[in-house]
């Protein structure tokens, strides 16, 4: 099983509102978030971190990108009540 397939092996109830964002004025495009994310959400384009539209479907809500960012440019909070990742076998 390759990394992409593995990263898709998750269960969730799709959150309706945003819970992750990047402040482009703070981001310096170091790519720490790109490296750390185990479900390949982040990329860097023109020196800034880019959050794709479908991140709510793929994010594990682990908070590692928010936690690792040296510029504190990423904002993270948990998705709304009763939605988001469901861990059946934690």
């Amino acid at each position, binding site marked *: *099983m390759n*990394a992409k397939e*593995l*990263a*898709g*092996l*998750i*269960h969730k*109830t799709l959150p309706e509102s945003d819970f992750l964002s990047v402040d482009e004025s703070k981001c310096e495009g170091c790519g*720490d978030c790109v*490296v*750390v994310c*185990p*479900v*390949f959400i982040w990329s860097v384009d023109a020196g800034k971190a880019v959050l794709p539209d479908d991140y709510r479907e793929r994010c*594990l*809500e*682990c*908070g*590692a990108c*928010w*936690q*690792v960012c*040296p510029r*504190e440019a990423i904002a*993270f*909070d*948990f998705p*709304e*009540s*009763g939605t*988001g*990742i*469901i*861990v*059946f*076998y*934690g």
Partner: protein
Amino acid sequence: MKRYDLIVVGGGPGGSVAAKTAAESGLETIVLERGVKPGEKNVSGTGLSPKCFRDFDFMREMDLPRMRVATMATLHCSDEENVEKLNFSFSPSARAPYPEAREFLTKNVYRSELDPWLAELAQKAGAEFRTSTRVSTVDRGEDGRITGVVTDSGEKIAGDLIIGADGVISTVARTSGIRERWDPGEVAMILNVDYGATRESIDRAIGGNALHYWYSSLFPVGYTFFSAEGFHAGLGNYVNWWKKSPHYYLKQMFELEGVQRQIDLCGGKPREFQNHMVTFLLDPKTTYGDSVMLVGDAAGFACPFEAEGVYYAMYSGMLAAKVALEAHAGGDTSASFLGRYEKAWRDSPIGEEFIGGDAIDGFVRGIGFNPDVGRWVVPLLNDAAYGLLNVAESHTASARNLVPTLTPYLPVLVETLVRDLMPLANKIAEPPPKKPSPKVERLLRRVLSPVLPFLARRAARAKKSAYGEVLSDVVMRDFVQTYVDEKAKEAGGAIR
């Protein structure tokens, strides 16, 4: 509006034990859990330590369908070619200090079974339990004092005592001003793959040998932990450690023949991919504020040595609930009163885990989380074992080869021991024995004074050999110096 004596944010083991303890003592308690079911947001290594069963009577009633009792743990060491070179196992000691510890190493469970069971105990004790309820912030009155919490639907829940049991990213800690986030060097990220398998196949392939650690120079130390009908395989390191995608390291681990064999023999099928963060702290720092106490991962109580979390969450939940009871009875929820919570956990098994502080941190960073050490530790251990046990030559010849074989490792071994291991050993060791009482000391001096000049001469002569130098320096110096000082003092006194 209804006012609660205690609001517990988070329905994991810390929150449920806090709520159970508080409700049993008569506090009007509510637990707010953001998941649809308790435990559905939580990832664990799966192992409950014997401590959980020693310190909580109700745990002895625990009977979860997917539990596997681990009676043996195995450390596998592999080399730079990703080939397993040596392993060793251990099991509970007959001399372990209490019955559960003599019986098993861990009880491996799924959080999707453990957390709902604990939540039910809290409910039975009288706590109100609300799921699908995410707290977005603590609520403050006009004077700035905390008056409750606000959920993400805008509902206010009133109560001036809050236990934050809401995990490593704690909303209570963030919005009460205790902490926005951890330092990136304080928190690790653990990738975890859950495999499904049948009970029979795991019984046959693994049995009670249900905790496997994989030590390598190619990836940070990994694990395969087995429950009754499935297993977890994963690894982790500090969030700011990764140079390549975590999957690169995970793949290296999965390519190990030993890991493959376990998956094949158990017929394991990947069922779920998980990731979570866990703190590795020198010291837990701030764990309370006005109206707020933090427990479990929210407080940073994961064991700084191997990241065990459930026990510390349960224990701190219990302690925080007891302090909440006192605070409620005395009508004082100020930070200065809740400071007794910190005193309580520092005096408990939680505080004990952090006494090692910087020494444990040095060990974890220097050895545990440092794959580079595997480059020489694995060949060293194997050369030592091989040197003693091989049948390729006569045992006399092998024994003769042992010293020259191991000598090249000495510089790096000594360096690592001194830098990463000795500080830890010193911290763990009992405090140095107290000086003998003056009475005993006087007696010793009287008995020994006739022979001291002789001992001093022996020491001086012994110094000429290498081993004598160590002997005279370490053993004799203090003794002789004290004697010489004393004589000088006597003489000085006489002159004056």
